[in-house]
C-alpha cells in the first residue's frame, strides 16, 4: 500500500469518526410493520407440497411451450440487465450480474458514415486508436518518452500513468504484465478533450448517438442497482470508445482495447493485485 493509500485510510477513518462518534447511541432496531390481517408470508401446512407440485407442473408446462421448436432462430434469450433489487425488495442477495446489459454484440466494422479523423495528432482529441500521440497498445517506455509518469503500482493490479499534476491530465492504464496501454480516459469532467466526431464533456446523449450513427452504440446500464443508463459504448474497428453519461450528458470519455468496460473503463489488468 502506497503512502497516499495509508494516508487515505487514516483520513477516511478520522472523517468517519468525526461524523459519527462512537459515543453516539444507536436508535432502536426498526421492526418491519405488518398490517393487521395480512396473510402470513411463510407457507406452511399440508397443502404446501400440493401447491409446490402444482407450480412445478405449471412451470414445466410453460417451459415446454416456450422452448418447443418454432422454426425461428431467435430462441436464444437476449442479455438483460439483472438489476439488483432495493433493500426492501424480496431478492435474497444484493449482488448483481456484472455482464453489461447490452442488447447487441458490438460490431467491429463501422459503416461508411464513420467520423473522420481531422486532427490525428491533436493532443486533446480522442480517436479510436488513441489520444494525440498516445496510442492503445504502446509500451510504458513509450509513455515515459512522452513525459508520462507512473503513479506506482497500485493495489489492484493496474499501473496508471499521467502527465504532471494538472487536473486536465489523462489517466492511462497499463497492463503491467503485457506492458501495453489498455485504456486512456479523462480523469475529471473537463471540456478540454473531445472526440474526432466532436463529442466532448457536456454533449448530450443524443449528440453522441448522432455523431456515431454509423457504429454499433450500446447502452451500458448501471448494473449496480438498476438506476438506468450510465454510459454509451461505441465499437470501433479494433477498440472501443466509452462515454460516461450523467443526467443525459457526457461526463467522461475514454478508449480501451476491450469491450468489457463500463463508464469507468473496466479493463482487467493481468498483473497481480491484492484482494
Amino acid at each position: 500500500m502506497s503512502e497516499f493509500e495509508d494516508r487515505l485510510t487514516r483520513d477516511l477513518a478520522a472523517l468517519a469518526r468525526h461524523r459519527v462518534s462512537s459515543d453516539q447511541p444507536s436508535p432502536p432496531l426498526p421492526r418491519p410493520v405488518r398490517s393487521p390481517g395480512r396473510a402470513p408470508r411463510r407457507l406452511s401446512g399440508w397443502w404446501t407440497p400440493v401447491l409446490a407440485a402444482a407450480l412445478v407442473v405449471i412451470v414445466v408446462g410453460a417451459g415446454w411451450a416456450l422452448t418447443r421448436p418454432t422454426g425461428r432462430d431467435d430462441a436464444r434469450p437476449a442479455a438483460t440487465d439483472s438489476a439488483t433489487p432495493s433493500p426492501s425488495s424480496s431478492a435474497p442477495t444484493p449482488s448483481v450480474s456484472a455482464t453489461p446489459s447490452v442488447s447487441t454484440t458490438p460490431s467491429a466494422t463501422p459503416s461508411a458514415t464513420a467520423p473522420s479523423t481531422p486532427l490525428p495528432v491533436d493532443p486533446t482529441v480522442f480517436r479510436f486508436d488513441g489520444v494525440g500521440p498516445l496510442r492503445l497498445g504502446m509500451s510504458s517506455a513509450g509513455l515515459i518518452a512522452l513525459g508520462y509518469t507512473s503513479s506506482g503500482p497500485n493495489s489492484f493490479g493496474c499501473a496508471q500513468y499521467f502527465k504532471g499534476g494538472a487536473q486536465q491530465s489523462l489517466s492511462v492504464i497499463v497492463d503491467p504484465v503485457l506492458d501495453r496501454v489498455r485504456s486512456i480516459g479523462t480523469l475529471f469532467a473537463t471540456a478540454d478533450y473531445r472526440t474526432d466526431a466532436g463529442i466532448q464533456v457536456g454533449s448530450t446523449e443524443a449528440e453522441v448517438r448522432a455523431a456515431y450513427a454509423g457504429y454499433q452504440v450500446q447502452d451500458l446500464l448501471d448494473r449496480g442497482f438498476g438506476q438506468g443508463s450510465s454510459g454509451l459504448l461505441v465499437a470501433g474497428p479494433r477498440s472501443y470508445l466509452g462515454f460516461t453519461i450523467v443526467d443525459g450528458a457526457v461526463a467522461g470519455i475514454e478508449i480501451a482495447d476491450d469491450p468489457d468496460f463500463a463508464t469507468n473503463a473496466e479493463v482487467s489488468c493481468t498483473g497481480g493485485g491484492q484482494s
Partner: protein
Amino acid sequence: MTAQAVVDVDGLYAREWHALVRLAALLVDDVPSAEDVVQEAFLGLQRNHARVTPGSELAYLRASVVNGSRSVLRRRRTARNHQPPEPEPVNGADVDVLAKAQRDALVSALGALPRRQKEVLVLRYWSQLSEAEIAAALGVSAGTVKTSASRGLAALQLRLEGRS
C-alpha cells in the same frame, strides 16, 4: 427459527450500526440521512432474512447501505448539482483548524469523484473490503473495481495534493 433470526439481527445491529452509519456518512453528506439509510437496510434485512444466505447478512447490509446512499444522492442531485455542501457542525474554539481543513479537502475531493470511484475507494480504504467483496457489494466485476480504484485514487491524489 424466527426467534433465532431476530436475535441474530439484533446482534448484528448492535455490532455493526456505527460502522454502517459511518460508511453511509462517507457516501452521503449528512449523518441523519446516513442513519436513515442504515435503518432502511436493517428493515430490508429483516424482511428478507429468510432468503439471505446465512453468513452473508453483513454483505447484504453493506450493499443495501450503498444502494440507499445512492438513492439519497439521486434525490438531491438536481438541487445541489453534484456539489455536496459540507455540513460540518461548528465545534467551538477548540476545533482543530488543520484537521478540519484536511477533512474539508477530503470531503470536497471525494465529492468530485464519479460515484462508482467514490464508492470503491470508501469501501476499500475505510471499510477495508477486498476487491472481491467490493465487487459483490457494488454488483460489478473485479475489473471495474480495479480500474475504478486506480482512477479514483489518482484523481483524489491530484486533487488533495493540489489543494495542500
